């Protein structure tokens, strides 16, 4: 089989690799090429060297979007992973000991489904859904309140003017991040559950026999053994924090820019420049900048969170 093995591998890889090069690598290369030009998207591009990149840094729309990404980069992974860890711990190891083995809380099976449901919904639908949930209502104006405002009003928070989650420039970005967290948690609950179930139960039982509390179990055993998975989750969420295009475009006012341009994100600016204005070259330059930012983040994350893998 030795002589046939290479041909076999190449035969199977040929088609996928070709598709990958054609539809992923080649457009990347073309984008890099276009980024050095001034192009209106129709006639031939005229090359203008590093002008686009020079203009990027003085463009308040670009720097504004980058600021928003920094906020999302810090908030999204932190909040999502914390919540996901907590949930998956509860669902796998948070319950009572039955037959000598730790189980999850009651109804874990149902919770797993509920937590994963947001992942199943299309992003655009989630955007429309939360636009309604976040809606600032007004009795006198005949505008119905969203669920969130209705609940807050019932509890007494909000006063005469309901809270404009998507229309207040201080709240809009956080409202969007909230939806991103809501959507992402389910996936990481499943991911961490899978990782936790692969940890041998004897470790937990041994620790429990020694009198370890639930919290100690979590911080001293579960967390260290989950480090690899956490690293993966951190990087994926960081990359997701550089996106947010679909949500922002559907939920946020003014075409996604938000009140006082407070929710602009780089993919949105790229899209605006490429399709709503004749600035495809400039948009490509933004794309290149985004590419390097994402790669840098991933590289740094992997370096910083690297540990020796634990064999068990």
């Amino acid at each position: 089989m030795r002589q046939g093995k290479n041909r076999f591998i190449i035969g199977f890889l040929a088609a996928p690799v070709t598709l990958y090069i054609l539809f992923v690598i080649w457009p990347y290369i073309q984008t890099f090429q276009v980024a050095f030009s001034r192009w209106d998207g129709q006639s031939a591009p005229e090359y203008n060297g590093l002008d686009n990149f020079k203009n990027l840094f003085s463009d308040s729309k670009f720097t504004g979007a980058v600021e928003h990404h920094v906020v999302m980069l810090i908030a999204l992974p932190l909040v999502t992973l914390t919540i996901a860890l907590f949930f998956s711990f509860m669902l796998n190891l948070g319950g009572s000991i039955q037959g000598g083995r730790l189980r999850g809380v009651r109804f874990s099976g149902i919770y797993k489904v509920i937590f994963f449901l947001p992942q199943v919904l299309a992003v655009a639908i989630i955007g429309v859904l939360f636009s309604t949930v976040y809606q600032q209502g007004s009795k006198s104006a005949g505008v119905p309140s969203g669920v969130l405002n209705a609940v807050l009003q019932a509890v007494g928070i909000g006063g005469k003017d309901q809270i404009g989650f998507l229309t207040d420039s201080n709240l809009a970005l956080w409202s969007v991040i909230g939806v991103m967290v809501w959507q992402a948690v389910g996936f990481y609950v499943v991911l961490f559950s899978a990782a936790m179930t692969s940890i041998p139960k004897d470790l937990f039982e041994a620790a429990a026999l020694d009198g370890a509390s639930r919290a100690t179990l979590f911080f001293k055993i579960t967390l260290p053994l989950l480090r690899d998975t956490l690293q993966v989750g951190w990087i994926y969420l960081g990359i997701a924090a550089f996106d947010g295009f679909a949500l922002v475009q559907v939920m946020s006012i003014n075409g996604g820019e938000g009140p006082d341009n407070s929710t602009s994100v780089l993919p949105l600016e790229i899209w605006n420049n490429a399709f709503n204005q004749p600035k495809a070259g400039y948009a490509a330059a933004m794309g290149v900048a985004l590419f390097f930012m994402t790669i840098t983040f991933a590289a740094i994350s992997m370096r910083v969170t690297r540990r020796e893998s634990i064999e068990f």
Partner: protein
Amino acid sequence: MSQSPAPKGLDRRTLLQRVGLTALVAGPGVSLLSACATSSSKKKDNVKANNSDAKNPFGVKATAPLDVVIFMGGYKDDYATKGHEPIYKKAFPGAAIKHEAITAIGTTLQPRFNSGTNIPDVVDNSGTAQMDWTALASAGQLQDLTKLWDAPSVDDPSKKVRDTGMVAGKPMQMNYVATTFGLWYNKKLFADNGWTAPKTWDEFTALCDKIKAKGIVPFAYAGKNAAYYMYYGIIQSANKLGGNQVGVDVDNLADGAWSNPAVKTAAQKWGEICQKYSDKAYLGLIHTQVQTLHKQNKIAFYPSGDWLENEMKDVKGADGFEYAICPYPDMGGDKLPYPALRVSAGEPFFASAKSPNPAGALEYLRQMLSKAGAQAFFQQAGSMAVVKGALEGLQLTPGTQSVVDAQKAAGSSVITWLNFDGWYKDLDMEARNQTNKLCYGGGNADSFCSALDKEAAKIKADSSITKQTRPAIS
């Protein structure tokens, strides 16, 4: 472009002819670029017109298929599928028409134009995501429509097409719809309460007080996606107050154009109206949501164009709701006194130069400009096409009738249309943002004007953006 003084007893034809001349001049600088496009001879216009053949002046092949792209927006696309396309098919039974209704015109069509494959013949280049006209022209994608304007008209072959239109034709754009913009209200609601459309600002605020006392919100606009309706209105008031040159300066990115006293007064007065008589909740709603509330008598006045009635025709409103338009009220010392109205020709179509059936495209446009075409458009889309006398004898919907009446009353007092929102997207987005801040964010006119002057200056200084201009208006 000289404009002769309007004679007494003005009719709509003269009004709109005058508007058309302004629109011709005020449109994007495509006419300037037509020289560039043809001189670089990217593609020779190979459609030869034979004006002695009244039935087929462009020599359309009887069996050549036609690809028509219609913008799916306020006018929808029934006017094409049930109106113009059947008319074309009657003239050329062997031709298969491929109809495409697209909302994101630029996003969908740009790749096709770029690659040179599957280029549509006729394109209704409209909507938020329309393709950039300057770029299209410089790439030689647009046919010169002069041969269309010189061709014999469908209804009367002894007349040229250009003579049957209310608005003069442009070299590369056919603007099909005569559009009016103003304040919309429910005729029945006002009649029931004994309210009349206000002529002066004092009458307007007094009326708003009465409306508010009745538990109805006097004024609103949709902040989420249609803030531009509101700044259209602010500039409209500014033009009315200080003359149409105010709008020309804004379009031309003149220094301090936004801080012109007329603009500042208009911004301040409209800001006050919104803060006192509107509601923040509308900031988070899209235009159809606010328009529905308007149709349910929850809102009294709503700024929009005459597409409004047709756009909302399938939405259930209050019983007996009748759309009516009224001009913007005087602010005091207006150069263009009440009832000056903002009218122009909009909804631009073009015929592709590099598509498979360029002759068919011209013929399709010619058929649209016939009386039958204009009537079909009115019946399906509820708006007026630029064809003279097309609506005579037709039963008009209340909204359209009120637009016709308002146009008659306005006579030659015409407020011109804005262009910068199509030319400079950044300025459009910033204007929307500032409008929302002014009206729903408790802002003030000073910051509105200075922020927009700043943005205009930034665009002016950016050499990578192609600038367009409008000539001065006396």
